[in-house]
C-alpha cells in the first residue's frame, strides 16, 4: 500500500512584480481564487437543484457522479462569463478608454 503523498503547488522560478508591489499582486491572486470558489459553490448548488428536480433525496455520491447535460454545461459557461465580466469590469473599462 502506498502512502499519501503531498504534491507541490508552487512553481520554482522568478516571480516578477506586476502592480504596486507583491502584496497587491497577492491580493489579485486571492480575489481570483475567491471568484473561482464562488463559481464552484454555485455549480454545486446548481447540481443539487438539478438532481432534486428529479428525485426527493440525494446523496454525496449522486453529486460526485453527476454528469451535466450539454444544456447545463452551456448555462454554466454563460454564468461564469457573466461572473468574470462583473469581477473584471474595472479592468475592461480601463482598456476601453
Amino acid at each position, binding site marked *: *500500500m*502506498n*502512502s*499519501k*503523498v*503531498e*504534491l*507541490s*503547488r*508552487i*512553481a*520554482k*522560478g*522568478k516571480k*516578477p512584480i*506586476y*502592480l504596486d508591489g507583491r502584496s497587491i*499582486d497577492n491580493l*489579485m*491572486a486571492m480575489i*481570483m*481564487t475567491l471568484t*473561482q470558489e464562488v*463559481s*464552484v459553490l454555485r*455549480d*454545486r448548488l446548481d*447540481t443539487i437543484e438539478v438532481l432534486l428536480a428529479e428525485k426527493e433525496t440525494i446523496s454525496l455520491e449522486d*453529486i*460526485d457522479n*453527476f454528469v451535466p447535460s*450539454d444544456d447545463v*454545461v*452551456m448555462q*454554466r*459557461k454563460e454564468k*461564469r*462569463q457573466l461572473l*468574470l*465580466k462583473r469581477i*473584471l469590469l474595472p*479592468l*475592461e473599462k*480601463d*482598456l*476601453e*478608454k
Partner: protein
Amino acid sequence: MQPQPNHDESVRQDFVTDLRAFLTDEIFSKIVPYYEKNVEPEFVKEQSRKPKDKSEVRDLMLKDKSYQSWSLLQRLSQQMMFTSVIDTVERTLNDLIDRSKLHTSLGTLELDNKVEVPRYLTAYDIHQQPGGYHTEKIEDDIAPGVVYDISLPIYSRNSMGDENDLLSQAIIGHMQKHIKMPEPESILDMGCAIGNSTLPFAKIFPSAEIHGIDVASPCLRYAHARANALGVTAHFSQQNAEQTKFEDATFDLITSCLLLHETSHDALPKIIYETYRLLKPGGWMIHLDVYPFHRETIEPLYDFLKDWEVTNNNENFSGALRNMNLQQIFEDAGFSKETIEFTSAEAIAQYTKGYTGDFYLKLPIYLAQKPKTA
C-alpha cells in the same frame, strides 16, 4: 489512464478553462487597440516618433497598470490551472500508480537513474508546472505526467484533440504533403514527455519502430502506461537528447515537439549534432518549436507580446532561441544546406466541450535532411 475529478474539482477546472477564454477573448483582445490609442501616442508626444523596437515597447508596457493587470491575470490563470488539476492527481495518485502497472505488454519502458536532469529543467519549473516534469515524490511516481495530460485541454480550451496530439498531427500532415521520403521504418521522438506527440507516428506508420526519449522518469512511466491504455506500441527510454545510447544511423525520422526552446545555448547544438549522428543517410529531422528568429518587419508591439511566455511563464530560453543562428548550427552539424527549411506546419484546431469554432494554426517547424551520401 486519466483520473476522475470529483464534483468540485471538475467545476473548479472548468472555471479555469473559462477564465482563460475570458482573458483571451475579452481582455487580451483589447490590448492592441488600447496600446495604439493610449500608450503609443504618449510616447509619440514626447519623442516625436514611434517606439522603434520591442525593448522600448516593454519599457512602456511594464509601467502600464492595465497591461500589467492582464499579464498578472494570465500568469495567475496558469497557476490556477495547475493547482486545480493537482488536487485531483494528489487525491487519486495511489490508485493511478496501481492502474499504470496493470497493462504494460505493449512496447517497452527503460528507466536509467544515472541520467541527470539538466540544469535548464531544474533551475525553474517550465510553464510554471510545480515540480516540473521530473520531480518524483513516491515510488513509481507518474504524477507530473498526469498533471501535464489533464492540464493541456484546460490550457488549450480543449483544442488539442482527444489524445492531445494536435502538434504531431500537424507534423505528419506537413510530411505527407511536402516531404518526399520513403515510409520511415524507425522513428525517434526527442523530449517526448507523456508521448502524446509520439503515438500518432505509431498509428500512421504501423510497421515502424517508434521510440520516445525524455529525461523525466515520471513522465515516461505515464507515457508507457498511457500508450498501453490506448493500445499503441512504442518504446520509451530515459535518455538525454544531447547524448543518447542509440547507435549511429539508427533512425529514418527524428522529431521533437516544443523541446528545443526548453533547453539552452549549450544544449541545443548538441541536440542537433546528436540528431545528425542518429539519422540514417537520407533521414529527416523535424523540430516543431517557436518562431526561430526575430523578424525585422514585425511591429515592435507584436514582437514584445510574442515574448510574453519568456518572463511570465518560465520559458526562459525561448526568447534567446530566436536570436540563435539555427541555419548555421544545422549546417555545421552536417545537414544538407539546400534541405534546411524554417517553415510552418498547418493545422485546424477545433474547440470542443461547450466552446465552438475552429481556428487555423501555423506551427513553426525546422526541417533538414542528412545527406544520402553521409
